């Protein structure tokens, strides 16, 4: 019986641990685990000690059971109201453990002391063979101690309730902040996508579309000219061909700006290699990616690197750039170092702001260290999995 209970409690802890680890990889995973398990775990050692001292009885088993429930459920259900309930369950476990102690008394397990009553024998027959004495229930100081303990725990529980339910509780605060952040980044992402679409529309309208109209008009004019002046018609057709070539070039540039084909073909590593080959400065690469991130993350990371590289060339006048890409513990880390003049400020440049906005949608961050005189080090981190 004892063994089964201990196995149960250990299983509770393991389950709780694994479930709270569902966010493994998240930078907040450890604090979350610890906070989630906190109140579930407090009564547990006390309940186990009580169980060990007094064996299985109603009180110790109840204490173990409630502590176990609190431990299992706390990390799994981190919502605020529920965690408040769990604190109460945990407190109940604590209370029961205390009662278990008190029932057993400080001297040891609950036992029945008996002593022969031969000394009380009357002339006829014994009044009773034994007098039964139950220590633990009688001592006034012990009763006072139990009462104080119970009152203390209840008071502590009551003190906790408003703090857990209330607006000051850490989970609620954290969730409120998170919701606000998500709302902001979602708006930015939607705005960004809409602006991008407008840009595509404008580029198409002013570029390829306009050129195709010109091609059509040229061809029509050539058609009319063929009978009368084949030479002039020929010149128009040649012009139409030229214009269609330029339309294709426009479309190519547009596609590159939306989603570079080499990124679609080969993924981030080769796309960055292609970027480095096109860059007018010496670019050394140190890329180690065992798989591919999701398309949107890959694309955001690619454009971040492209922008950082362009800044290094354009604004910092760098001669050498080093790009390092790694993925570990669920985090994509990109470090771009250049030997330029430094002084880059994300608050100033629209380019870096744009990268930040794009990374925001994936909880990514951008950190820039760029003292005047250089060197500039830009670090991008995006939580993501590789496939």
């Amino acid at each position: 019986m004892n063994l089964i209970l201990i196995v149960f409690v250990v299983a509770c802890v393991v389950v709780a641990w694994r479930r709270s680890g569902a966010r493994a990889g998240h930078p907040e995973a450890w604090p979350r685990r610890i906070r989630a398990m906190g109140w579930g775990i407090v009564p547990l050692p006390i309940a186990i000690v009580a169980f060990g001292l007094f064996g299985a009885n109603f009180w110790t088993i109840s204490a173990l059971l409630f502590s176990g429930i609190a431990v299992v459920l706390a990390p799994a259900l981190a919502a605020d109201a529920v965690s408040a309930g769990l604190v109460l369950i945990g407190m109940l476990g604590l209370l029961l453990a205390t009662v278990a102690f008190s029932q057993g008394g400080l001297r040891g397990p609950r036992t029945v002391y008996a002593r022969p009553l031969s000394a009380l024998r009357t002339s006829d027959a014994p009044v009773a063979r034994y007098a039964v004495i139950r220590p633990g229930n009688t001592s006034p100081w012990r009763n006072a101690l139990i009462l104080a303990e119970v009152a203390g725990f209840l008071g502590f529980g009551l003190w906790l309730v408003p703090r857990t339910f209330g607006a000051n509780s850490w989970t609620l605060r954290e969730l409120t902040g998170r919701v606000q952040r998500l709302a902001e980044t979602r708006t930015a992402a939607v705005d960004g996508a809409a602006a991008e679409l407008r840009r595509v529309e404008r580029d198409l309208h002013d570029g390829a579309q306009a050129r195709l109209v010109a091609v059509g008009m040229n061809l029509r004019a050539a058609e009319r000219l063929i009978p009368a002046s084949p030479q002039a018609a020929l010149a128009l057709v040649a012009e139409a061909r030229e214009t269609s070539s330029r339309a294709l070039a426009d479309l190519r540039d547009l596609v590159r700006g939306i989603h570079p084909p080499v990124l679609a073909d080969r993924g981030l590593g080769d796309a960055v290699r292609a970027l480095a080959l096109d860059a007018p400065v010496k670019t050394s690469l140190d890329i180690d990616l065992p798989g591919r991130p999701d398309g949107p993350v890959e694309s955001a990371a690619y454009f971040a690197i492209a922008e950082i590289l362009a800044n290094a060339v354009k604004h910092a006048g760098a001669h050498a750039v080093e790009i390092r890409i790694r993925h570990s513990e669920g985090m994509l880390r990109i470090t771009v170092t250049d030997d330029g003049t430094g002084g880059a400020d994300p608050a100033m440049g629209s380019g870096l702001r744009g990268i930040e906005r794009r990374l925001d949608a994936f909880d990514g961050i951008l950190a820039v260290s760029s003292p005047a005189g250089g060197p500039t080090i830009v670090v991008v981190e995006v939580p993501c999995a590789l496939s």
Partner: protein
Amino acid sequence: MRVVIAEDLFLLRDGLVRLLSAHGFEITGAVGTGPELLQALLEHRPDVSVVDVRLPPTFTDEGLQAALEARRQVPGLPVLVLSQYVEQLYARELLADQAGGVGYLLKDRVFDDDSFVDAIRAVATGGTVMDPEVISKLLVRHSRNEPVARLSVRERDVLALMAEGRSNSAIAERLFVSEKAVGKHSTSIFAKLDLPPCGDDNRRVLAVLAYLNS
């Protein structure tokens, strides 16, 4: 001259077949997917093939991969790769084996059928043809470095045309100068880049590209 064509869009494939037939090529295969292309290249061993980079089933660089694989199995198998965009990374991969007989052109070069057909023939005879865009990017990359910076404007023009795989006479015609003048520019370029002088057109292109790609 036997040619295999790989292009997944029917309109373009049909157009290429008609264009090349009109110029006297014999079309031994016109395929639309990467695996079909690899099979056709290895089976027919064509004199030259015209390959679109992007092919089904993955719609990534399947055509390029098939061409590279075929050249691994049959070194120097002439392949002209066409693409909607040029990527230096892919140009490098095509040039990596130094075997010649490769071309990499933007699709719009098809518009100028004469020089397109010239390019196919150059590739078929072991030449190397790179799109002007590849060359200009390579030159931009080296523009800050000595000794490319020392080349005169005219020398750069000649260099670019050389890297496109054109012969001295074609370059002369294009730049409206004498063939002898082109020869002089070419000697000067090789001297400035510190490359051993080279008479053979094909080897010359490879030398220049290897230099620019280093």
